[in-house]
């Protein structure tokens, strides 16, 4: 007896709904970008500067009273929120307080933090401050730049490697799929207003790594099948390849998701945003390997006769004639 996520033999037509899925992907990406530009990301202090204080108390958190205490200090924009988590004990009431970067100060002054802590302790003497983090505006600006460079460098490296190992059409397909995953992740972070910080960038790079892993496995099979079935239309070969690797795709996503969901629920609130991003990325990444990457390759066409040198004009090469077969 075996647990099977998919039947042993599958022959789904992954292209049947290709306009729907392509359309859905494009719409989702546009919505994500619009959300990003209008609602915006909820940047953590890593990227916007400022201070966050995490407090723990025996008594329940009274956000209004906290706010009153902190507002009296006139520190500008202050955000206070209570944190809930299944891993907390009953008498563990946690809140996060964020203050904006103070004008004209590069470094964060200890006096401001001491004043805040004193004001809050007046509200609830049982308060403990379990973490205090401050980032100056100078560093936060650089961190944004580094983050953008990191994601761009990862994509460029992958573009190059896939081009080296496969064909340029594959590398474009893979990178479009990655781009799709990254944009959708930014979209969901804008939509749900989850804090976006350095760890989120790490998560995005992990998503890039995971998604490419999935895509490469399908491409590898496609490469093999293209050599085996030289005259079968490209679309059919692709479909065959996806079907053959479907079981593996779902198995790996399944085990990874299983592990991530355990972490999402039980790993504590400190890394929840990070784990959420990766979980989301695994789902989107699996979808994009099956539906986005290969559709792009199909659209671009691929060189089919591997024994001859690339003789065609332009990048499409000899394979271009098989592109857009029934479109």
């Amino acid at each position, binding site marked *: 007896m*075996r*647990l099977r996520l998919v039947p*042993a033999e599958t022959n789904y037509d992954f292209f049947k709904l290709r306009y729907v899925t392509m359309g859905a992907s494009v719409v989702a990406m546009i919505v994500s970008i619009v959300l990003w530009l209008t609602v915006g990301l909820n940047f953590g202090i890593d990227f916007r500067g400022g201070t966050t204080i995490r407090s723990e108390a025996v008594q329940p958190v009274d956000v209004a009273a906290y706010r009153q205490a902190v507002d009296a200090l006139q520190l500008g924009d202050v955000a206070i929120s209570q944190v809930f988590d299944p*891993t907390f004990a009953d008498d563990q009431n946690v809140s996060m307080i964020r203050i904006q970067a103070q004008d004209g100060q*590069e*470094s*964060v002054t*200890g006096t401001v933090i*001491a004043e805040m802590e004193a004001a809050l302790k007046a509200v609830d003497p049982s308060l*403990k401050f*379990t*973490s*205090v*983090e*401050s*980032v*100056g505006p100078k*560093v936060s600006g650089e961190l944004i730049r580094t983050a953008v*460079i*990191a994601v761009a*460098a*990862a994509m460029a*490296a*992958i573009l190059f*490697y896939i081009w080296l190992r496969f064909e340029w059409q594959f590398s474009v397909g893979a990178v479009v799929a990655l781009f799709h995953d990254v944009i959708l992740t930014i979209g969901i972070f804008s939509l749900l207003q989850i804090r976006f910080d*350095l*760890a989120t960038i*790490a998560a995005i*790079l*992990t998503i*890039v*790594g*995971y998604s*490419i*892993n*999935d895509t*490469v*496995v399908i*491409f*590898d099979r496609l490469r*093999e099948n293209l050599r085996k079935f030289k005259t079968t239309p490209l679309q059919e070969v692709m479909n065959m390849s996806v079907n053959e*690797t479907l*079981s*593996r795709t779902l*198995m*790996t996503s399944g*085990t*990874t*998701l*299983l*592990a991530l969901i*355990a*972490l999402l*629920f*039980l*790993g*504590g609130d*400190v*890394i929840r945003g990070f784990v959420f991003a*990766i979980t989301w990325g695994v789902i989107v990444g699996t979808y994009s390997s099956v539906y986005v990457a290969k559709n792009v390759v199909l659209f671009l066409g691929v060189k089919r006769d591997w024994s001859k040198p690339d003789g065609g004009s332009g990048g499409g090469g000899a394979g271009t004639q098989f592109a857009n077969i029934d479109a």
Partner: protein
Amino acid sequence: MLQIAAWKRFTIWAVCLMGLLLAFPNGFYSRVEMHNDAVAEIEALGSTPEREEAAALWPSFLPSSLVNLGLDLRGGAHLLAEVQVADVYVERMDGYWLGVRDALVAIRDDVGFVERVEDAPEGELHVRISQAEGLPAALTAVRALAQPVASLTGVGATDISVSGRGNTIIVSLSPEEKAATDNRTIQQSLEIIRRRVDEVGTREPTIQRQGSDRILIQVPGIGSAEELKALIGTTARLTFHPVIQQTSNAEAVPGPGEILVQDLDDSSLYYILERTAVVTGDDLVDAQPGFDQNGLPSVTFRFNPSGARVFGRYTTENTGAPFAIVLDNQVITAPRINEPITGGSGQITGNFTVDSSTQLAVLLRAGALPAEMTFLEERTIGPDLGEDSIRAGRIAALIAFAAVLVFMALSYGLFGIFANLALLLNVALLFGLLSLLGATLTLPGIAGIVLTIGMAVDANVLVFERIREELKTAKGPSRAIELGYEKALSAIIDANITTFMTAMILFALGSGPVKGFAVTLMIGIVTSVFTAIFVTRLIVVMWFERKRPRTIEV
């Protein structure tokens, strides 16, 4: 046929055994940590019965390296400081002024009177001469003072660039010298911070240079970033200046070559001092907290021979005059010189408490920071939060692990159990390598391990699925297994190389916790590929040799 040479089998098992052995101490974390601390203390401070007892908690023939816990897991403080390297240029220029003056005075007939322009831009020395036509001669004389730059990249360059405009000579440090100076400033700052942090006995600080002018300081176990800042934050530049005048006027304009300095305790009190210090803290060899004749806390210091000579001469010549002891541009005290101090030692009295005198002594002993620092980033993580994170991470990891094991066994039966064995070895190898490299485990790093557990089975899944496919074409079990491994290999390699590349970029550009995540991810990729390609295969082959099944089900 399925064949693996005996030496290969031996190597594979040896690697696994090594991994297990290296990972083993992490299972007894606190015990091994106590042992390690005790061993270090015995080496540094000598043996005591308690230390010997603590050292005996763990047998010395077993490996004892542990995975380092990051700040986010054990609590502590993190600071990112920017060193104001330009401070040093100003000082260097002040130092040059005397030399330039002497050189120009020697050719007074050509250049006339010489005076320093007070409002010159920072880091530049402007000198005015009264006879503008003497400028070429003056430039030649000043250029003769230039020294070759002492650095590898600045070979052939001189340390100052000299130009003239009208009747003014402009001296500034050359770009090569600035680069060399910056480098020296940072190195010196690193060294001094290290001494200051270690003086008070805090353990295992990480003090690293970042970029051209930044220093990252991480100290586990310290109460807060404020505490750490107090420890390293002050420049502690001690200087002794002749006092010209005492005043209560904050707007008083000091004459040429003089500076206005505030009193440390009485903010309405100011002193006008000579800019050039008689002696500086650089000449100190020792500083200790103590008490003065009235029983008040003070700091006793001792000069090195050259400092003692200069100080002795000055106090002999100026007996009866006041002089000021200045710390970081504030006057601590300005006593009158009662008698010549020729012994080279002295005492600073001021408004000290026992704590502040102890701290000043520590700072003076460690030496002054060459330049001021601004703090760009500071983080404090309480130990409780770290403990909570470890607990939550451990539970989540165990459940994730169990879920994956069950899932694999249900999906692939016996082969799934083989893969599970390999997965267990994989995690052991991962911890073993992390301990061996002394890598730091952070909270995202734990997430990285969980992710690795989920993804590590991927290579096995690829192979098993391939074997299933090959079995369909009815080639017999041994051929199917062989083909399965052979054909899945390219996918495994390509998929893992691309993932590894992103992890490397993460490592190169990330910092702190993110770097820790990248390390676990990279090591996880290496160990999971090793266990999938070598270990599972070896287990499968060994099983196959023994059973010789006619048919297999994957």
